[in-house]
């Protein structure tokens, strides 16, 4: 069964997964490097709080009608994935979910900036760093989304 729900997940659900979901939905064009303002226009970008970790955030429908979500799992990405896949089987939705870990695309700047901005709420210090890091990571995220689209079928 082709997946009906595509879930991009990372540590905090505030940066890489949000950007990947936006690329998937065409809110950010893969062909051009988005500006800082483009990133900041995205729902949740550098705004997610720790209370939102574990909550699936619906981003929209892609061109194939699949639902795209972002999710922050902290350091339990594999565990959350494993649990939700089993729960999906239980509720009769087996094969509907596709989890994509975006953490490997994250740059050091994103990690440090994200930590400062989200963990310590030092937004003025962390946000410029996270934006710069996201711009650096953008090509890798575009490649990841392209790979996902090829795998799940466009």
């Amino acid at each position: 069964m082709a997946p009906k729900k595509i879930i991009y997940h990372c540590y905090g659900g505030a940066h890489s997964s949000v950007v990947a979901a936006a690329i998937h939905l065409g809110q950010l064009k893969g062909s051009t490097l988005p500006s800082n303002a483009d990133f900041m226009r995205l729902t949740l970008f550098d705004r997610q709080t720790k209370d939102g970790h574990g909550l699936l955030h619906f981003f929209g429908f892609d061109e194939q009608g699949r639902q795209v979500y972002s999710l922050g799992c902290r350091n339990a990405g594999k565990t959350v994935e494993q649990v939700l896949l089993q729960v999906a089987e239980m509720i009769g939705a087996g094969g509907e979910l596709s989890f994509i870990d975006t953490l490997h695309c994250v740059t050091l700047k994103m990690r440090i900036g994200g930590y400062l901005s989200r963990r310590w709420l030092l937004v003025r210090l962390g946000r410029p760093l996270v934006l710069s890091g996201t711009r650096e990571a953008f090509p890798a995220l575009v490649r990841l989304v392209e790979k996902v689209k090829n795998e799940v079928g466009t």
Partner: protein
Amino acid sequence: MNYFYLGLLDLYLPAVAAAIHLGQLEGKKHPGQKELDAIKYFRRGSHDEDGRIFFVGTDSAGDNVFILSVKVQPEVVIRAVESMLGLYGLPLREIKVVPCLLENPQLAGWGKLLSRLGLGRQERGLARRVVRSHFGGLLQSVQRSKAAKR
């Protein structure tokens, strides 16, 4: 309805909670060594069992009882399960996740260390002591989760 008893780092506490739920352990007295050792899944759990859900049985009301253990972030796992139920428009009571967590996770770390050192008997002994000291709390958790259904 499905009950998930969720542990951190090992399956000992969730296995005992599931046994209480299914009436395999009496709540009136603390279980002895034989009773604990006879409980299904009363064990540490291996590395690849992180997040794996085990079916333990069906209770008298026809509800299914499962256990699982995670290495980290149990609260994130709980939120994710609840969020997914919402996604499918299912009521939260469809799956009730009951945390069976140690207030001091270092104890589980000690158990893991003993196990790695090949001191399996001591590790199991520590697990039994931990279970006995948490038995009252587990009993209350089970009773509360069952009462929440009514």
